[in-house]
């Protein structure tokens, strides 16, 4: 039964990586900016949910979308006020995003409580059968992640705005000729990416003790997922996220926890050597 538990643990882990990484890959696809603020957006989503639930008394299920939208709005502001100027500038954009992440995280350290915080969820039961355990919050995370990513995939493939996003991702010049305005689409894409990061934080928050560094590890894993899945590919991101989740879960359970992250990087290197564009990226 341990193998089943390992697979379940991996799928849960992979679902959160997917929520984080899909936003990261979308933003890179459009802005050509490596968004190092994604980890702090995750952290802000978690703390916004904590604030809404514990301080404002708003139930968890209402707090989650509110927190995600607030983080999305913050993301739009980041794009409009700062990152827009660095669109397409790979190195400068990455440095600015990194600097913003440091600023936001240190501001959070100054403002937020120094002790770990937790919040409660209506999904506080556990499902247990034949030695395999799944908490209902974890099941909720998996369901929510798959529903959201399906909705995102449909949005990108079926809507006019989604097609504009894809056009920009493929060729900015050609997209402009077709009347797509990058200045209008980019904030929206950044907002969607930030909302997904905030949502991942909000969903994960009840599972762990909250600290301002909460987004550091998910950010690292998300970069591996994006590289593995192929930059700009939602489907590839999902497959890569689940792969990394299961690999990390298996490495930890059958070998040792400190090796889990290293194993993910080794896997990413192997995939990049064999297939530089990742699982689903364009050659």
């Amino acid at each position, binding site marked *: 039964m341990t193998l089943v538990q390992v697979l379940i643990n991996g799928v849960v882990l992979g679902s959160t990586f997917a929520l984080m990484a899909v936003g990261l890959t979308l933003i890179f696809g459009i802005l050509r900016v490596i968004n190092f603020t994604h980890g702090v957006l995750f952290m802000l989503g978690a703390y916004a949910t904590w604030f809404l639930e514990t301080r404002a008394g708003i139930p968890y299920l209402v707090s989650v979308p509110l927190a995600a939208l607030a983080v999305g709005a913050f993301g739009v502001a980041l794009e409009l006020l700062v990152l827009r100027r*660095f669109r397409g500038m790979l190195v400068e954009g990455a440095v600015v995003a990194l600097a913003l992440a*440091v600023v936001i995280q240190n501001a959070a*350290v100054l403002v937020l409580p120094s002790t*770990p915080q*937790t919040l409660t969820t209506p999904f506080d039961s556990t499902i247990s059968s034949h030695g395999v355990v799944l908490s209902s919050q974890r099941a909720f995370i998996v369901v929510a992640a798959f529903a959201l990513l399906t909705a995102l995939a449909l949005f990108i493939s079926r809507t006019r705005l989604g097609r504009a996003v894809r056009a920009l991702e493929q060729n900015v010049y050609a997209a402009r000729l077709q009347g797509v305005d990058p200045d209008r689409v980019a904030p929206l894409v950044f907002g969607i990416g930030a909302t997904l990061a905030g949502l991942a934080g909000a969903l994960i928050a009840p599972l762990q*003790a909250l600290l*301002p560094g909460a987004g550091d590890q998910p950010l690292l894993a998300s970069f591996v997922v994006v590289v593995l899945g192929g930059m700009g590919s939602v489907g590839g991101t999902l497959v890569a996220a689940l792969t990394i989740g299961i690999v990390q879960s298996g490495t930890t359970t059958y070998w*040792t926890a400190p090796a889990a992250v290293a194993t993910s990087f080794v896997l990413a290197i192997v995939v990049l050597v064999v297939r530089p564009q990742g699982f689903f990226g364009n050659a």
Partner: protein
Amino acid sequence: MRKTAPRLVAIVSVFAAVITAALLAGCGSSSSSSGSSSTASGGEDGTIDYGLLTALSGSTASWGTAEKASDQIAIDEINKRGGVEVDGKKYKFALKTYDNGYDPTKTATVGRQAIEQDGIQFVENLGGGTVAAVQPIAERAGVLLFCSCSGSEFLGEDHPNTFRPYYDDAQSLASILQYFKQKNPSATHIAQIYTDDDVGHETIPLTEKPLEEAGLTSSVTYVPRDATELYPVLTKVLQDNPEAIDVGASPEGLYDGMVKQARELGFKGPFMFPDAFDFSSASKALPAGDLVGSLSAPCNLTAGSATGKKWAKAYEDMTGEEPQWWSAQSHDNVLLLAEAIEKAQSLEPDAVAEAMSEVSVEGATSGGGTVKYGGEEAFGLPRAFEVPYPVCEITPGGPGGRGVQKQVTKG
């Protein structure tokens, strides 16, 4: 030319952002404005700067907050009674705090700032995982280093100016194991989940003897200090059906996660906390009842002397929180330093170090009592605090069913 201006703006913005980030990154630390740690001229009063490198950010920030408050209480006490007198001159203490984030790299940076830039000669550092980063800097400069941390590799004859104003984790676990075995005579096996750093790897071998004495075996697992998703680790750990889980010197963010997720996975046994454990904070952060049955040491719930009561009240007044009793050791260490300076009649670190082992104070450690450096006979280490190790158990009840912490052995 048209392309140059936006690029220039971008580069300038990059530098501005990085500089702002660097400035904000240093917000958690305050540093001395004076160039020297002890200043006095003529017959005027002087100041002795006491440097505290501690975690004011990150997963161990609650430890840093407690340590800073406890040092400040001691300094206020010393200054209130007029400071220390050396060679006819009066010196008052001033606390200079630096955020080491419980991170070796940051510790080296702020250690250099405190010792080399600000010239502080008496430095306290939080964390067995960080002391290796500051000890070479301290020894090169000849300053006194007090490590508020578990571990022992940084002590000994090669390090005459390093002191450990902190209890011994192996001794602490020994007390817990003795009580656990007495209560559960048929128990044979526990799990140990320790941090994957110097503290975890160096403490585990020291716990072998107490485990053997208690007739227990253990399976050891290491986890990154900042790990948050612990289901995979716990899936592995719980395969062996341990009768208790020893969390070692994990920070609160980590042990809260272990307790919560292990309970979800069906673990019913007690957790063992042989290092700094904050019941007040953990019981609020965890679902009701998750901590019931768990054991911690050394555990002092009440002040046993006037000094202990005075410290506890000052701590509550300063922080608005219940005392974290382990941090009383930092308070007592500052009092011992003041005594040693007066005994040595010198501010020279070597002279003060020699006097440190000869003085004792009535402190708040272990609820209150005589505090001194020793440890050579008790556990073979010089310049370490000698303290009793009472054990506390969390029993059912309390507000919201979160449990009640009760002292069950005297130590």
